[in-house]
């Protein structure tokens, strides 16, 4: 029994930490997909790109991966700016809402980035070095019950939570943040208010992609990365964003922790190889039963 409680507690703690980390990976998609209705299916692969930037800066220059992520963030902002410009000119400008072509566009982008990384770095798993990687804190709670908290997960959790809360504050408290949320609700009204909705969308999309700078760095802190693992994160991030209610930042955080705990429990009691089925399973279930997510108000499936 003690062993069971021990396993359960450890799984819960790791799951919550993992959830915070997943929130940082999903927040960008919550903005681009949830608020702007741009289905950036390449988001996980852009995160991998961020992870490789952190890897290069860490292994070549020797700076801390989190600092590397912060340095990379403005560049990812620029990258996102360019992607949206291309997307807008190709698909949104003409007025016809052919979202399927947009989806194919991002699907193609996913493969371009992934293969680019494979050609440059190969398919080996890469990792970064930092003082907090590899050690863990042991908290003894009783006889045969102690909770191990890996510092790498703790660091990821803390940074992710700060980033998520900062974005949430930005979106709810500032004028521009409110404009972004207004774009999601009523573009016409925004235009009548004298705000250029395209400019707002462009900046917001770039912000969403910019999160890949820091998110990617956290990714490679938490576990070794190779270019094609991005595909597996499609399940995680989309499950979280849809479950969180498309664009609700607090909802995203809660959904991320739900997914993190579910994955951690399944990994502990059934084996880690079942983990991918958890997020994709939850995603499928949510889509089939409640597409508007746990916290969404509008009907989904449009």
């Amino acid at each position: 029994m003690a062993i069971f409680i021990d396993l359960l507690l450890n799984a819960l703690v790791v799951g919550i930490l993992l959830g915070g980390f997943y929130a940082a990976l999903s927040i960008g998609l919550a903005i681009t997909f949830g608020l702007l209705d741009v289905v950036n299916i390449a988001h996980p692969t852009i995160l991998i790109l961020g992870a490789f930037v952190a890897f290069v800066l860490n292994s070549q220059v020797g700076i801390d991966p989190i600092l590397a992520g912060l340095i990379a963030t403005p560049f990812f902002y620029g990258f996102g700016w360019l992607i949206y410009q291309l997307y807008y000119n190709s698909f949104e400008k003409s007025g016809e809402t052919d979202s399927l072509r947009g989806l194919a566009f991002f699907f193609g982008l996913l493969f371009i980035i992934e293969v680019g990384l494979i050609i440059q770095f190969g398919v080996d798993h890469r990792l970064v070095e930092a003082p907090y990687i590899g050690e863990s804190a042991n908290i003894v709670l009783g006889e045969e019950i102690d909770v191990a908290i890996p510092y790498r997960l703790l660091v990821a959790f803390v940074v992710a939570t700060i980033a998520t809360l900062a974005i949430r504050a930005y979106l709810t408290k500032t004028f521009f943040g409110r404009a972004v949320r207004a774009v999601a609700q009523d573009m016409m009204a925004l235009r009548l208010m004298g705000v250029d909705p395209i400019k707002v969308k462009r900046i917001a999309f770039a912000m969403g992609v910019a999160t890949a700078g820091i998110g990617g760095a956290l990714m490679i802190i938490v576990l070794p990365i190779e270019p094609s693992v991005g595909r597996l994160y499609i399940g995680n991030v989309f499950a979280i964003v849809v479950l969180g209610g498309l664009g609700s930042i607090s909802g995203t955080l809660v959904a991320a922790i739900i997914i993190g705990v579910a994955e951690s429990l399944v990994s502990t009691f059934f084996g880690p190889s079942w983990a991918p089925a958890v997020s994709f399973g939850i995603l499928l279930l949510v889509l089939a039963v409640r597409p508007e997510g746990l916290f969404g108000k509008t009907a989904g499936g449009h």
Partner: protein
Amino acid sequence: MRYLFEIVCLLLLVLAFVATQVIGNQFVFFVGFVILQYVVMATAWNILGGYAGYVNFGSAGFLAVGAYTSVALINFLGVGLVEQFVFGGIIAGLLGLGTGYLTLRLRGVYFAIATLALAIILETIVAHWGYVGGAAGTSILPARKPELLGVLVVDRKAGVFANYKEFLFFLMAGVAIGSVWVARWIERSKLGRGLNAIKDSEEAAECMGVPTLRLKLIATTISGAMMGVAGAPLASYLTFIDPLSAFNLEYAVNAIAMPMIGGTVSWVGPVIGAVLLGGAQQWASLFISSELNLLIVGVLLVIFVIIAPGGIVGWFKKSR
């Protein structure tokens, strides 16, 4: 001529048969099989994606279900190739029917993401199913001297085909021609017009009395079954199969890219796309590197959705 298309189909099939008897270079059949498989995949994808506007991201899942149905049947009953095609199609068709019910609530991108999720869940399940090899995969050795209706099919001296590569090539040629025929038939039938109406506006179609759910279910079932048939001989063709290669997202991106590049409006588009893109990829993976062929697909897909929404077919229509 009323049956011109059917006659051309038959001639092509005869041509494929003659090729297996005349051409000695096995490489032709090796590459030909892959391209024909992609013709089936692209055509199948287009029935749902091009005609009805429902994008399937999980094509690899259907293909792999066909492939693993064969593996299970080989292990269980030791069935021959023709039965593998039939059962691969049936099981993947049933899966297609299941995904059809998803369209009840999911449209557009939500449907696309759901199909991707489905494929990955299936992959995880197959990877844990030891009977068909689990995550490590399994080897499949084709029967030594298979007979069909009393005729020795594959044998170096006395068989109709000298080896399995030629036999598989011929079977896949038949499947590809059959798929294109079905796609063309759908396009010209009431079913195709109904699916087009769904693509334009599902609500409007519903209001006009189009039985949208029934049509969608038929489309997902046919599309799924075709993909299953395309995947059924995969294990015999490679003589080895594992979940990672069978469920490879490469199949999914190709199944989308080929019709998009060729043109999604008619059956011609996927065929052109599959032949051009499949050929280019085979060429690239042979002479340059196997990573590069995915890069080609990605770049072409992005370029075509941006500058040529109608694909190659749309291009020609415009210039005329």
